[in-house]
């Protein structure tokens, strides 16, 4: 197992190198450049040229790439072209907010997706199964932007039971940002009311962001459970009179979860991508919103570092998923 993890970690090096090239070249293909974004509509061509020189954008690409990669090796993500702020600081400051939102979305997707997948599989062919299929199709195809605005309209404006945006009621709770995860900070501050309020603020954005993963997890669970239900050992377990709860938990779910876990890892990418839209419409100061602004402003330094760090996180989460296979299915050996 140790060897497996080490090998996977070593594999990260070529993956990262490839990613740096892709990210570096992709953003330079984006229309516009940072100089134009900094100077705005008042830019004269001469001023644009001056700023380009100051930012080093007039130098050969290979030189710019070398500077970027050597910075990464020193763990120096650089300084934003637009705000002059340290990219590492900015990332670390916002990342906890995104983690909190992503976790809420994942919890929503898992706690509903797996049971619903299981249920529809066991009632295969029933009206419940058909309804589940329709709902999950809608879930997959609904745009987050639309869903977010609709959820807000329904549950924050029409029936005002949940907050429409933000991370906590700033008037009621002045909670010091220690971790910048509001739920954790509220507990650290000993504010139970603040903790509940932070959870309430997580519900709508969590649902908006978690709906697509929910639908996908539900469908995969259903398909996987159906496969397992047809296995001989399940029939045997049922035949020898085991309680259906025991059959479900010990024999069906455990074996059916393997593909689901893989999908969960892959969903992380979707969640981090979806966070951009969710954070924008829910006024959530996370990494998604930060990278979105950077793309709008052609802030190369932020995009190339931010996207890379997210990619590393994505790869690491998937490594963790692979490792977790061993716990779910001891027959798997890493060699």
């Amino acid at each position, binding site marked *: 197992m140790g060897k497996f993890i080490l090998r996977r970690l070593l594999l990260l090096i070529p993956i990262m190198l490839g990613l740096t090239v892709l990210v570096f070249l992709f953003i330079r293909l984006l*229309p*516009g*450049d940072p100089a*134009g*974004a*900094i*100077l*705005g*509509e*008042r*830019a*004269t*061509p001469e001023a*644009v040229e001056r*700023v380009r020189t*100051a930012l080093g954008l007039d130098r050969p690409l290979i030189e710019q790439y070398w500077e970027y990669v050597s910075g990464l090796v020193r763990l120096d993500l650089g300084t934003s072209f637009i*705000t*002059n*702020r340290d990219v590492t600081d*900015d990332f670390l400051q*916002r990342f906890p*907010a995104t983690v909190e939102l992503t976790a809420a979305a994942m919890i929503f997707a898992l*706690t*509903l997706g797996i*049971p619903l997948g*299981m*249920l529809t599989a066991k009632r295969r062919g029933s009206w419940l199964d058909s309804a589940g299929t329709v709902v999950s199709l809608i879930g997959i195809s609904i745009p987050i932007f639309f869903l977010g*605005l609709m959820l*807000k*309209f329904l*549950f*924050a*404006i029409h029936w*005002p*039971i*949940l*907050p*429409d*945006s*933000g*991370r906590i*009621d*700033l*008037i*009621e709770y*002045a909670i010091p940002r220690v971790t910048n995860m509001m739920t954790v900070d509220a507990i650290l501050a000993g504010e139970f*009311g603040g903790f*509940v*309020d932070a*959870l*309430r603020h997580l*519900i709508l954005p969590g649902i908006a962001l978690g709906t697509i993963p929910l639908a996908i997890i539900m469908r995969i669970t259903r398909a996987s459970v159906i496969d397992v239900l047809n296995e001989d050992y399940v029939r045997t377990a049922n035949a020898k009179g085991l309680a259906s709860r025991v059959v479900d938990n010990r024999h069906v779910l455990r074996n059916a979860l393997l593909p689901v876990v893989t999908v969960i890892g892959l969903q992380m990418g979707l969640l981090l991508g979806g966070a951009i839209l969710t954070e*924008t*419409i829910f*006024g959530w*100061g996370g990494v998604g*919103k*930060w990278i979105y*602004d950077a793309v709008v402003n*052609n802030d190369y330094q932020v995009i190339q570092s931010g996207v890379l760090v997210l990619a590393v996180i994505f790869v690491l989460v998937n490594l963790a998923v692979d490792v977790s296979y061993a716990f779910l299915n001891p027959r798997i050996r890493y060699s």
Partner: protein
Amino acid sequence: MRTWRWVSVLAVLVLVLAACGQQPAATPDEGSEPPASGSESEAPEPSASEDVDGGEPTAGGTLVFAGARLAASLDPALTSDGESFRILQQVYEPLVDLAPGTTDELVGVLAESWTGEPSDTEYVFTLREGVTFHDGTPLDAEAVKFNFDRMQSFSEEFQGDAYYYGALMDGFGPENLISSVEATDALTVTITLREPSPTFLFGITLTPFSIVSPAILESTSAGDAAASTFGTDVVQGGTGPFVLDDYVPDDSATLSRNEDYWGDPALLDSLIIRPIADPAARLQALQGGSVQGYDLVNPSDYETVESEGFSLVERLSFNTLYLGLNPVARENAVEAESGVAEGYEGEDSPLQDLAVRQAIEMAIDKEALIEPFYGGRGSVADTFMPPSSGWFDAVLAGVEPAEFDADGARQLLEDAGFNAENPATIHFWYPTEVTRPYMPDPRGLHEAITQMLEDVGFVVVPNSDIWDSPGYLFDAQNGFYDLHFLGWTGDYDDPSNWYGVHFGYAQEEGSDDRAAAAQFGCDVDGLDDAISAADAELDEAARGEAWAEVAGLIHENVCFVTLAHGDTALAFTDVVQGYEPNPTGSESFQSVWLSE
């Protein structure tokens, strides 16, 4: 069955959470504490402006307000956008400022009085006594000198961001407009200019010219671009009615009343500013009660805002949308890398004929654009300068606004030799992926104006490009487009910042040779001399006349067609009172109060 139970438990949990603390989120007036005095009766008509009274102003409460973004930097000298100014001008103050609600009336802020006329090179400011910065440092002449010296000696890394200092002081360092800043005595500052500048006093009203506590500037290494933490740390360096308590980028800025303020203290206990980029999401935040006010209401939402009992506070525009006309675009475009020239296919531009340009101006029904695109809140632009400008009447005197006359336009085109067989073909560009207060819907405006031009016989070739430079902006400013949209938001109220900037570019830095920006390709006899003369004129009345002459020459020759001034608006819940909008966006929350 277990699964069902599991799902039900989850659903109940969500409902319980939703029910917990439902009250604060549901009521729009959350957080506004009971008034310290005043009646219990309901506030009269919803209002946030001074003309409708919501009762006696009372102190107390917290206002949560949404803008599109937070500040680009917390260092006022390094900011140049309205969202940054919104936060920083509550905390920091300049020597002089625009009187509330005006664009051309100066009042002393940190300077109690000053001497110096537009024709002078020496300005003497007498500082207010007893003012202290939020960190306790007293304000004195040395502090003012320290601030100006810092900006004057900005290193190159800072200069790009210190846009306004560079633009208004003609660059940085020893050769620019400022000859010296001296602390003549404890409360007297003398600023000497190299040459008279009629715009100097208006320039220093801008937020970037705010005076910061020298102790804070030193402790945050604000002079060193590599080490400065002034732009990022929460510090107590201002003198304003609010103190910055907390700042979480992309999340919130929390300000509280400065109890030791030298003037009337702010009425709000605290002010929280949140960034919500999407205008629809800002409206929802107002409807959902998580904010009590927001800026930049979408014109299409004006009706919703008003019909739901919120108050709409209109801010007269300080901007202008225009149609740029470039008779030599097709020659210029040969150099374009974006392939613009291919569309022109070697045709001569009909825009070289003044009659054709006049026909374009006459063909456009500007009035018809206001209702659909500006929600009825904008106004027709007869001159480049908006009616909110103190120079509007003076400049208008030199301009004869073209009346909409489709038949006249048709006749002009015919007289110029264009008809159905030989139509005047023009290429008309609009930007994508952008909206501006003066240009809420570029594509829609393009369609409307194309229709008007086609109605009188033009053949219009539609084109678009993305806004960012090098894209639309780059090609437009380099003069590659026949016909294009662009607009301007004034930095300060002087014709030189409007007509001067666009038609009187110095050919080289420091040179007196002037020309219209390449964008217009406008070659008008005597225009450069007229602009030089107007810019140098220091007597206010004569200056107005001189700029009127400039405006007359530009409009007569139809170098551009000014289309509309787009007003902007803020929305508030009915408890928010006393917000005073200003066309320049220079707005303080000092007088804002909550009526219940």
